[in-house]
């Protein structure tokens, strides 16, 4: 009970340590989400529309990547960024940038796979109309992404949920350095193991609140969009 009260106190009094962790977590996950969207949405749309040999295999691999264990992604990124790795000269290991790279690799397949399914369904509906209008390939892709935008919000939410809740990859490539690469999830893991449940519970409450608020905004935006755009 005391632990719960202390956790609530940390949250309500705006504890600087707690909110620094929250801020870093949001910056890392939202940046990764933005990069993953830039990669995943066009990739998913192209996979939905372009037929080429081996396309089915690419789709299977993409779907499989959705379930890739975060620790494996963390290990691969670690090996790439470590001093002896091919990208070791960049000096990114144990920095927020390394965490962003790991989360981008984790989230991009989710967004690409969900985008492909969404765009493919919409394309089945629009194909005859757009073909009869002689709409070219680039405008087709732009049209489908725009018209599927409210459904794609769901893909982005799924990606954000995966990034924000993840701990295995970023603890490997970020190192959980206090004040530098410590995020909500890595801090929760650490503080729980140390027995400091107040901070762990406080961070857990904030993480849950963020997920709920973002989902509520996305749901509201989707409903509004459907109301005005059909």
């Amino acid at each position, binding site marked *: 009970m005391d632990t719960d009260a202390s956790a609530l106190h940390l949250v309500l009094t705006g504890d600087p340590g707690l909110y620094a962790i929250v801020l870093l977590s949001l910056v890392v996950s939202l940046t990764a989400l933005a990069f993953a969207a830039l990669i995943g949405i066009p990739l998913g749309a192209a996979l939905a529309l372009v037929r080429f040999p081996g396309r089915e295999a690419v789709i299977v691999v993409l779907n499989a990547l959705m379930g890739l264990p975060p620790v494996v992604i963390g290990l691969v990124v670690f090996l790439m960024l470590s001093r002896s790795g091919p990208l070791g000269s960049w000096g990114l290991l144990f920095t927020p940038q390394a965490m962003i790279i790991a989360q981008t690799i984790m989230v991009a397949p989710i967004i690409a796979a969900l985008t492909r399914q969404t765009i493919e369904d919409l394309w089945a509906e629009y194909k005859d109309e*757009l*073909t*009869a*209008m*002689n*709409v070219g390939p680039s405008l087709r892709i732009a049209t489908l992404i725009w*018209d599927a935008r409210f459904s794609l919000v769901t893909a982005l939410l799924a990606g954000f949920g995966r990034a924000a809740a993840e701990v295995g990859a970023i603890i490997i490539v970020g190192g959980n350095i206090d004040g530098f690469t410590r995020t909500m999830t890595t801090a929760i893991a650490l503080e729980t193991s140390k027995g400091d449940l107040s901070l762990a519970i406080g961070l857990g409450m904030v993480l849950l609140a963020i997920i709920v608020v973002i989902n509520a905004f996305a749901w509201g935006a989707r409903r509004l969009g459907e109301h*005005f*755009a059909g």
Partner: protein
Amino acid sequence: MRAPSSDVPVELEDVSVLAGPVALLDGITMRIAAGAPTVLIGPNGAGKTTLLRIDIGLMPPSRGRVTWAGREHAPPDRRAIVFQRPAMLRRSAAANIRYALAAAAAPRATRSERIADLLALVGLSGLERRPARRLSGGEQQRLALARALAREPDLLLLDEPTASLDPAATKAIEDIVRAVAARGVKVVMSTHDLGQARRMGGDVALLHRGRLVEHKPAADFFAAPATEEAKRFIAGELLV
């Protein structure tokens, strides 16, 4: 830029469309010339929709040849189609038309005026901002018609444009089609409705099992059908 030449007449020479062992169209030879609307009639599965898809260029024939004003490979710059169940883009009514204008490279400066004119033509003024998917079935058909006309086609193909519409909505569509045809647009429409074929048809083509059974001016077709199938169809018997 719009193509300067017309897409009419459309000529089909011994056109067949095969789906595995089944012939959706079987050796169709016909000429669709400028003038009053051509009405395609026939029972379900006769090949009406397939013939319209061939006419717009959405699918190539398995055998035979299609030409538009003598050109075999003509992009659909001057032809448009309204499907039986048109897909509404997830935008407002006005934005659906704006999209078609943009796809047809209509001058940007004139688009707003054209949208207003087209919505007025199809009786949807005042519904500019309504999401297209929230329009009624009849309103969606009229919007699809406006979207097709935004391309300024000289060949307009309509696939059962009044199927499942009530008499008032049917009359509204027929009135618009008459007005469009009066402007010189060649209309080709399919229908199950013999009354509509009488009202609208300059010439009538009866299809059955993928074959063109009879194609002649509407008055002649109804007054003096030459084939047994046409006589039975006009008499209201079921062609199976």
